[in-house]
């Protein structure tokens, strides 16, 4: 446990010392707020809730989180600092857990910006804080999946730019696989239960439950099992790549 906490603290220190961490987070919230206000136009629609705002946050996370978190693995392999870790009495599961938790904690702390926005909205009318809470939980889960996927892809590549591009494309595909698959499959006559199964493959499907205010055990299971699988895959693959 001490080793995990030490590694996580070191990772967080490294993130916080890099100026791009602050730029990325600032651009993330600014772009989401801007898109929500000028594309969704909540005042023009006479519906001031945060459903669409959270959709924009999930979409922007597909680009922003790989930018933020992926190089923790690519730089380890590129600069060979992984050799320093590999010679220590330390399991790779601990290393990959620390590398995953650090950016997740940083991005979670930045949720305070969302709460700030929610507070402003609550001044204009009654805001459902329950839905806001479930949306934050959903965002946490979906961002965990995005961080893990981008880090898994980062383990395979040495070149940061190529790794980043592949990660963004793959994450987009995974996030919106339901739409991609269904657009293709709807050409054929497929049953409704099968359609639902296909929908449930996508993280966005489960995320939408959360931002709609429904916390379902099926969705929690989906995120926990996927996260565990990705974490184990990173630990195994990073060890193999030595």
């Amino acid at each position, binding site marked *: 446990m001490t080793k995990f906490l030490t590694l996580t603290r070191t990772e967080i220190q490294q993130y916080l010392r890099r100026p791009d961490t602050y730029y990325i987070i600032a651009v993330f919230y600014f772009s989401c707020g801007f898109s929500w206000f000028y594309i969704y136009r909540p005042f023009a629609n006479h519906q001031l809730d945060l459903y669409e705002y959270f959709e924009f946050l999930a979409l922007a996370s597909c680009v922003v989180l790989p930018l933020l978190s992926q190089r923790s693995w690519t730089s380890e392999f590129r600069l060979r600092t992984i050799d320093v870790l590999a010679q220590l*009495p330390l399991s790779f599961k601990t290393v990959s857990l620390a590398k995953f938790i650090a950016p997740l904690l940083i991005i979670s702390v930045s949720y305070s910006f969302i709460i700030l926005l929610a507070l402003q909205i609550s001044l204009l009318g009654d805001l459902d804080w329950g839905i806001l809470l479930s949306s934050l939980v959903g965002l946490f889960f979906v961002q965990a999946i995005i961080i893990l996927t981008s880090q898994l892809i980062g383990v395979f590549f040495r070149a940061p730019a190529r790794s980043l591009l592949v990660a963004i494309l793959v994450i987009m595909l995974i996030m919106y696989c339901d739409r991609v698959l269904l657009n293709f499959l709807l050409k054929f006559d497929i049953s409704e239960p099968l359609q639902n199964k296909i929908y449930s493959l996508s993280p966005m499907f489960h995320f939408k439950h959360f931002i709609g205010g429904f916390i379902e055990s099926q969705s929690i299971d989906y995120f926990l099992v996927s996260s565990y699988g990705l974490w184990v895959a990173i630990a195994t693959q990073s060890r193999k790549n030595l």
Partner: protein
Amino acid sequence: MNFVVENLCKLNNGNRSLDDISFNIKNNEIIGIKGPSHAGKSLLLRVLAGITQSDFGNYRINGESVYPRSQKYKKQLGYLPQDAPIYSDLKTSEYVSLIATLREFPLSSNLIDEVKSYSGIEKHWNTPIHALSPSAKKCLSFIQCYLHNPKIVLLDSPFIGLESEHKSRVLAKILKEKHSTATLIVSHDTELLNRHCDKIFFMEDGNLFQNENDVVLPRGDHIDSHLQTPTTTL
């Protein structure tokens, strides 16, 4: 302490990158390995450090079988990788503290003083590593091998890129710790190896020889003919 390696083989696409290597190192012994580039010297050290996995081979410490990737083995090991990679974002003090914590070794004030003196970073204890000279970085990377009083130390080209002052500090540390460790040094510095090593091995094409003159075969026939010869026990 007696560290024995037997029949170590590492295959790479069907070829033997390390070919049936056997040797032993005892406490109070410094063994040098020299040889041309791409002979497999660094790979041998990476395998012994438990970073790269071997395909065959037995490892024993004091007669007890050990697995190089086990935590028990790694606790007894200090390894300086080639090019001495280091976390440049951290401060010197943070790096030393990180390694000590991950090694589960308490960082006493005496140890800190020793680290400072041997790595020559007294004035740069709270400086970010990226601001240090390449030689000082390498020294710092070197000193982390000895933080936890290891029984086996593997040093891959420890003198390359060092300024003369740092070189003498590194050498002094190796010689000071000699009595309690078995040290394996890979280096191209033949003069230094001749002067300080108890034994010098020569490595070529993944084979380890006790004498440089043993290597008489042309490269093409080398691997096949050595597969038929008995293990090189040194």
